[in-house]
């Protein structure tokens, strides 16, 4: 019952990835340095900001010489030896594709669960009311299997019906289990308090 849903999810993800392409970088080098004002002892307000420098350079170039000097060379001219040791450079790596796929899967799963929940709350009682005769048959079958305590017997039973019946059967069984769990936790408070 899940496989078609998951297929669509993956297909959708795949389409999105192909369409969107790669717009964001996967690596960066981020350097934090004290503001230049400290160094030059000037009171120039424009220089008195906290400085982050981000560049896209190979890992071995991720240091003051590779990132800061090309950018601020003229401002700190001659004082590189004082300035550079106070900079902290960090090379960071990420994978945008994985993030994208994961977030889209999460959104899909949540939406499917919400839709299914809405279905169970709104539509299912209506459908069940109509198919009451059918439902009676189900419960009988259930009792029988319950007496036989699961296992292959219930298999034999369910193989007989067509696929739809089987899905419905499984769903009923599952619903009963959840109802039991709910009773344990929310009504009787015997577990997970």
């Amino acid at each position: 019952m899940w496989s078609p849903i998951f297929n669509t999810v993956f297909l959708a993800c795949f389409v999105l990835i192909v369409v969107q392409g790669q717009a964001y970088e996967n690596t960066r080098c981020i350097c934090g340095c004290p503001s230049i004002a400290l160094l030059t002892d000037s009171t120039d307000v424009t220089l008195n900001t906290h400085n982050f420098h981000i560049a896209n350079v190979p890992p071995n170039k991720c240091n003051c010489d590779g990132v800061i000097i090309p950018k601020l060379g003229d401002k700190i001219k001659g004082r590189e030896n004082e300035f550079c040791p106070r900079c902290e450079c960090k090379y960071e790596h990420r994978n945008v594709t994985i993030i994208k796929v994961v977030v889209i899967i999460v959104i899909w799963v949540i939406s499917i669960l919400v839709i299914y929940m809405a279905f169970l709350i709104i539509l299912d009682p209506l459908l069940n009311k109509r198919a009451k005769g059918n439902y009676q048959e189900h419960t009988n079958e259930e009792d029988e299997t319950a007496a036989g305590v699961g296992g292959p017997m219930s298999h034999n039973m369910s193989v007989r019906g067509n696929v739809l019946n089987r899905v419905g059967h499984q769903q009923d069984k599952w619903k009963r289990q959840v109802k039991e769990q709910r009773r344990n936790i929310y009504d009787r408070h015997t577990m997970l308090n």
Partner: protein
Amino acid sequence: MEKFPLKSSSIPLNAATTYQTMNKKYSNGSGLSSVTSDDSDMIDITTSTAAGDRNTTTRSQDDDDGNLQYSVGFSNMLESGDIPGIGQYDDFHTIDWQRDIARDRMRHRYIVKKKQDSIWTLLAGAHDAWSGWLCVLLVGLLTGAVAGVIDIGATWMTDLKFGICPQAFWLNKEHCCWSPSEADLDSGNCSQWKTWSEILGHSSEGAGAYIISYLFYIVWALLFAALSASLVRMFAPYACGSGIPEIKTILSGFIIRGYLGKWTLIIKCVGLILSVSAGLSLGKEGPMVHIACAIGNILSYLFPKYGRNEAKKREILSAAAAAGVSVAFGAPIGGVLFSLEEVSYYFPLKTLWRSFFCALIAAFILRSINPFGNEHSVLFFVEYNKPWIFFELIPFIALGIIGGVIATIFIKANLYWCRYRKYSKLGQYPVTEVLVVTVITAVFAYPNPYTRMNTSQLIYLLFSQCGISNSDDLCNYNRNFTDVNSIEIAAAGDGVYRAVWLLILALGFKLIMTIFTFGMKVPCGLFIPSLCLGAIVGRLVGIFVEQLAYRYQKNWIFSGECSTGDDCITPGLYAMVGAAAVLGGVTRMTVSLVVIMFELTGGVRYIVPLMAAAMASKWVGDALGRQGIYDAHIALNGYPFLDSKDEFAHTSLAADVMQPKRNETLSVITQDSMTLDDIEQLLKETEHNGYPIVVSRESQYLVGFVLRRDLNLAIANEKRMVDGICGQSLVLFTSGHTIQALGPPPLKLKRILDMAPITITDQTPMETIVDMFRKLGLRQTLVTHNGRLLGVITKKDVLRHVKQMDNEDPNSVLFN
């Protein structure tokens, strides 16, 4: 922690039995007989002691169908294929470790013997041998992947409360501003990330924008929390809570059907993402253990060796629990130790290695997914390499004491609240409760920047050192970065004092909110909130000591290390020690906690401070309140968990504990004189989960033990298979040829009979019995007097007795 509770099991099992290969002749009976056999390849392990002294009756028996049963009595999986469901357990029942281990040994024997037959069986044997490793490999792979999904999903959704990245909605704020333009860098904010007020067309500054952001924050939090609570309620109620008390109970040998199922797994993952994103005071680390165990349980069904044997399955679950902690903290060794110290009950060396492997694989997978972009599996990984001075041990131990006190306050208050929820009307409104707590959390969290941010981020901020790149208020010191090589010690600026006040508020807020949050009906963990509480306390103490050192640099205490003007006190380290102290006080972990903490910091230099704090916190915690939070919740729920850490210190005897009590009768089944009607009547009238088999009612000599479930299944099976079974049919638990002259055919049920039940005498002290239950993993033991059967003691009788002795309500043990 008992390491080998089952190790000695082979001795009592083998001693009284003759233990043979499959399909061979065997001997049985009183267990003191030898075998006459013409089979050449038969392995004889006859009981040596006393066999010669006695007048041994040598019996050689042929079974009619040629498929012999063992005197151990458990029908082996392969031959019990005709009775479906044997060897399984009902919901809320205790498993019998002895029986399951014996079943596995039979299965293993069968495979070893069959190995020579053909290539195929050889391959089957090889597959059987490596299936344990394969299973934990798969568990590790999947756990790592799931943890990656949860980490990425939760960070993205947390930032959704503040704004969105319109060009790429799947990126969170940090990743959205991964490579900002030069203009953005100068202004200090990032133009790609839009807050909700910007999306609605307002500016990003000002009172209007603040109110809009505030409202959006509350609305998103409510939405996420409502979704989480209703998904849990609708699809998998078992997904709520942290799961560790239940995992502990399950690993100690208890069945909770569906607790580790597919739906629980899905809903726990999704609900966890949602409830973490809602900004509630909870973490995703504890539930990772539950998630990993659910994965372990589902995957173990791929391997019948583990899927169909509850005792063997617990080996996989122990490994999975280690993988869970491994991915939660990026601490593989800490995970293994956590599994050993905290959750597992039965932990042989084989399981230790498998846990190690499983944790390794899981950590590797998560690390290669790299969910936080920092090359580590946790957001709050910090790297420290600063020395600490000897004097600092005093504040560290003080932190341990504070941590123990905070933990005790938390445990007592949380338990009080949970008990109130259990017995009052509050428990009837689980979703409403979640919504109310969410609204309160969101309303009070937003104004304070330290509570507004994600708890993991706050922990990271508190752990980290004040470097150049750290521009938070916490690092607003009056220092000028003139000295190149080190950061000098400096007076705290206004920012630090502001931060201190905000942190004190945050501490109180987090403590109160966590008390009300833990135990709500959403997936919620406890590690992160307690780490956070401890980190706040630690940072505050750290700042205090740092300023002390700055003021009194000339004092003899500080003069050695601090006189040079270096920053000799690191408040971040105090935060770490404080975090360890509170977490240690709450969970009463020691070894695994210290290992987890030093794996988090990537250095072994701080082991002594962490150990000191963890130990102090445990002592204070134990002195103020006996139980850790998980044990307290186990007791609150009444799970049948026989803690191997507690000691039994009373002088009662088996006769005081056993069932039936005086003037009640013991329900027994005779081995060859009861009819089917009698048995069915007995099953209807009594609710015992097992019945002793005796030679006759008059003599009460014990033959064996049969489980109610097996009896039901076997009777149903015989009725189906054998024609002519009716109410008058005799039910035979003997295997000899009975002269069946008249009447309907008998039911031969010997194969479901356990011929080696553990027996004790009525004068056995309870101390011994409790030890046996713990170490052998028994489900029940039979009490004899002068060789005659007197009664039964089950695990639940023992638990009830322990409660009674501790002056607690014995009826609080549920699932009787």
